[in-house]
Structure formats: structure tokens, C-alpha cells
């Protein structure tokens, strides 16, 4: 008996001795910036599973609590499938789940179509559900007037849980800069994102956008967008299905920047380049015509000596 107790003590001592030795080596070997992240310590790689849940929670906040559950989403999908099967039109519920997927651009539309999607609740099926409606949010509104800030903790948590989730950084930066006028915070957050994802052309693009739009520093924005294009070529060009829209967007923004700077030839060149990546090349043709006209007028005014 005494032998076994001694054996247990020996094993425990070995374990305690090995723990700090291993800890130091693991941290050194890990070589990542988020080695001291509390979520990483507690949950390991499993934390990434919850990152998306935090983004959903941010969306729930954005909609002031009226949000379809997974059961509502499944019901809406089934209803949609039934309608499709009958050859019917669009279902009123607008596929509750999918309707709530956001990206930075989509948020602008949100304000215009308030109350557009409260119908996923439908009529109560029974008296229990009818009574239960008194105790829940049933009105579809969006946070406004600065209260949008309530979504930020969830986005920040999402980034902590999964630092490689690039969309979290770009969406958060949009809300911070465009909606809450906290540009410095947005830039800092994007820089955190860039440290965790040095090859992200999306973050570089967003950073450039903030420098161009809010700090009015076109040279810095240009450099960032050039770097974004380089990163896109390094990462996306090798993909089977590259993010064409991503490159198209960078090129269009770059073209507009050159246009603003009066570099019309460069602007036209970028617009021409963007046509290969844009879903609407005709719109870019129109823009090229406008730039050419502007360039012609500018040349004309330079050729004509002032009276």
C-alpha cells in the first residue's frame, strides 16, 4: 500500500516538474501573438467554434433581440422549399436565417428596410405561443443613434476567439469608423487584425479605405491598396475560385483615388483592369467615359491660354 502511495507521489512530482518546462517550450514553439489569450489557454483551438456564435450575437443585438432561432430558420427553409416545389414565388418569410447574414456593405440597406423581416414569427400556432409572445421582443427594429456600439463587445470577443476570422475585423471597423465615428479605434483594431493575418488583402483594403475616407491621406491609402493587390495576387490568384469581387473593389477604389488626384490615365487603366473582376463591367465602361471626358476637358483647359 505504502509503495503505491509513494508511486502516486512520484508521478505527481514528475507531472508538476514537467508542467513549467513544457509551458515554456510550448509558448516558444507556438510563436504566435495570441499565446497569452485567455480563451486560448482555456479552450485551445476549440474556441474557434464559438467565434461565429459571437458574430450572430452581435447581429441579434443589431436587431434588438428579434432574431430567428435555428428552428425558425429550418421552418422558413422548409416553407421556402414547399413554395418552390409548388412553383410559387418568393416566400414572405424571406428565408429568415439567410436574410440576417451581414457584411459591411449590407448594413447600409438595413436602415432603409426596417421591420422587413419580422414575419418569420408568423401567427401564433396555439394559446401557449400567443401568451409567450408577451414576454419576448416581437418588434423588428435596428439599433440606432449611437446604440450600435452594443454590438462591439460581441465582435471583439469573436476576434479574440478566432483571430483568423478576417470578416470580424472588417465588419467591426465599418461599424466603428462609418457609424460610430471612432476611426482611431477602427484603425487600431484593423492593425491587430493585420498582425494576426499579415496576408489579408481585405484588411489592407479596409485600412486604405479608412485612410482615404476619414484621414484624407490618399498617398497612404494608395500604398495600402497597392499592397492589398500584391497580397491578393499572392494568395487569391492561386485559388481555384479566387475572390474576384475583392480585387475588383480594390481596383475601383484605387481608380477613384487616382481620378480624385487628377491622374486620369492611371484611373482609366485601373478601371479597365477592374472590368475583368467586376460583376457589372458595363457600369465601369460608363465611368471610364466620364473620366475620359474629364481628362479631355482638363487637357483642353490647359491648352487654352487664359485671357
Amino acid at each position: 500500500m505504502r509503495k503505491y502511495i509513494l508511486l502516486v507521489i512520484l508521478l505527481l512530482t514528475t507531472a508538476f516538474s514537467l508542467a513549467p518546462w513544457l509551458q515554456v517550450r510550448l509558448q516558444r514553439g507556438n510563436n504566435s501573438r495570441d499565446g497569452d489569450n485567455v480563451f486560448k489557454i482555456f479552450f485551445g483551438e476549440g474556441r474557434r467554434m464559438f467565434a461565429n456564435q459571437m458574430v450572430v450575437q452581435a447581429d441579434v443585438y443589431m436587431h434588438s433581440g428579434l432574431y430567428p432561432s435555428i428552428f425558425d430558420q429550418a421552418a422558413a427553409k422548409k416553407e421556402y422549399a414547399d413554395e418552390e416545389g409548388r412553383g410559387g414565388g418568393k416566400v414572405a418569410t424571406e428565408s429568415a436565417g439567410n436574410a440576417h447574414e451581414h457584411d459591411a456593405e449590407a448594413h447600409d440597406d438595413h436602415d432603409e428596410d426596417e421591420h422587413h423581416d419580422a414575419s418569420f414569427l408568423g401567427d401564433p400556432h396555439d394559446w401557449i405561443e400567443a401568451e409567450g409572445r408577451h414576454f419576448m421582443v416581437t418588434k423588428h427594429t435596428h439599433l440606432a443613434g449611437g446604440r450600435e456600439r452594443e454590438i462591439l463587445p460581441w465582435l471583439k470577443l469573436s476576434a479574440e476567439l478566432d483571430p483568423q476570422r478576417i470578416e470580424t475585423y472588417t465588419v467591426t471597423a465599418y461599424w466603428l469608423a462609418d457609424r460610430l465615428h471612432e476611426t482611431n479605434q477602427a484603425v487600431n483594431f484593423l492593425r491587430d487584425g493585420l498582425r494576426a493575418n499579415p496576408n489579408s488583402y481585405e484588411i489592407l483594403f479596409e485600412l486604405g479605405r479608412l485612410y482615404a475616407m476619414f484621414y484624407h491621406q490618399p498617398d497612404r491609402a494608395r500604398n495600402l491598396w497597392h499592397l492589398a493587390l500584391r497580397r491578393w495576387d499572392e494568395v487569391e490568384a492561386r485559388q481555384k475560385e479566387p475572390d474576384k469581387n475583392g480585387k475588383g473593389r480594390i481596383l475601383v477604389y484605387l481608380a477613384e483615388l487616382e481620378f480624385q488626384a487628377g491622374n486620369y490615365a492611371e484611373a482609366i487603366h485601373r478601371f479597365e483592369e477592374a472590368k475583368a473582376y467586376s460583376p457589372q463591367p458595363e457600369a465601369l465602361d460608363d465611368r471610364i467615359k466620364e473620366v475620359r471626358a474629364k481628362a479631355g476637358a482638363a487637357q483642353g483647359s490647359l491648352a487654352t491660354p487664359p485671357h
Partner: protein
Amino acid sequence: MNTVLALAGVVIKEMYRRKDFYVLFVLTALLTLLTGSTTFFNDDKIVGYLKEICLLLIWVATLVIALTTSARQIPAERESRTIFPLLAKPVTRLQVVLGKFFGCWLVAGFTIVLFYIFFGVVTGAREHHWPWLQYVQAAWLHWMMLGVVIGMSLLGSLVFSAPSVNVTIMFIIVGGILTLGEHLHKVALRMTEPSQSILSALYFLIPHVEWAFKFRDLILFDQPLIPWSAVGVATVYWGAYTAALLLAAWLVFRRKTLTLG
């Protein structure tokens, strides 16, 4: 009635001698204050996450207190054999059940009041807004709902072999109702017979305590007060379930053989 109140008084006295409540309150307060000390993007006006976490902690703490307190009442009396002199007083078994219930329920009520005052102070200090009437509605619904939980746990303590088994099963049942209860009929609609009828029957059979849990959203998103008539209907609904569970507990307790061995 005096006997019932005397028995309830014993439960309350036992409660403030035990450390459960203090530990859970301190833990809730500590975690809430720790969360509150965190700022996101240097913005001290953000308060939603603090309310969300504090309310969740309050729900967990009150459920733990209600379930663990009620689950051990009758088994502890049996184990320490104090049930024999108690029933020899004479005190009827119905009075024992009612006394234990009211004791646990009053303890839960006291706990809820303290927790909601703490919640109001913490969040009010941050957002300078005190919707007290809404907190009263939330606390009342919470307390009524805990009546059902305590009734269920008392019945479970007479059915299951040990308080630990009872508490575990009750946590699963209550947790299941809080998270899935309102969705059962939606799932049932997509099923085939006989699963559809079974699930629908379950939906109508379970006490829908999730109404009180959902009420948190109304506080979180600064929604207006709900009609008091709705609060009244919920009170009667949960009251009926509590009465039915206590009746069932009494029927089980009446048939239970209490032996010294």
C-alpha cells in the same frame, strides 16, 4: 397554516446558516464587476454585454439555489430521522410538503430581490437609467417560475433515490424547457406520426417556464412594460402547475413508507 409557516421558517433559518447563497451571490457580484471593469474600444457607454452576463449569472445562481435547497429538504429529514418526531407532532404530510415548499419559495424570493437590486444598481450606475417597474415584472415572473421549479424538485426528491440524482435530472429538465420548450411544436410540425403527436403532447404538458427566461430580452433591449394582464395569466398558469406538482408530491409522500432501517 401556522404549522406550514413554522416549517417554512425552519427552511429559511437553515438557508441563512448555509453558505450556498453567500457563495453564489459573491461569485455573481464578482464576475459581474469583473465584466463591468472591462471596456471595449475605450467606450464606457456600452452596457448590453454587462446586463446580459449579469442576468445570466442571476438565472444560474437562483436556479442552483432553488434546486439544491428544495432537493435536499425531505431526504435530509429522512436521513437525520427528524422526520419521525416531526410527523409525530402531529404534523400531516401535506403540511410537511407545503412547509418545505413555502420555505424554499420564500428563500428563492429573497434571493431574487437581492440579485435584482444588485443588477439594478450595477447597470443603472453605467447607463443612468432605472426601469424599476420592468425589474419588478422580471423579478415577479422569475419568482413565480421558480415556484414550479421548486415544486418539481420537491416531487423529484420523493421519487429519485438521492438528492444528487434529483438535482441533475431537474437541471436537465429545466434547462431543456428554458432552451427548447417554446420550439417543440415547431419541431413537431415537421415530424411524421406518431412522433408529431408525442412531441405536441409534450409541448402542451410541460410548464412553459421559458417565458420568464425570455423576459430578459425585454430588459436587455429596453422594451416597454408588458401588460399586467399577461403577468397575471402567467402567474395563474405557473400557480396551477405548482399546485399540481405539490399535490403529486403529497400523493407520493402519503404512500411512502418511512422506516427506521
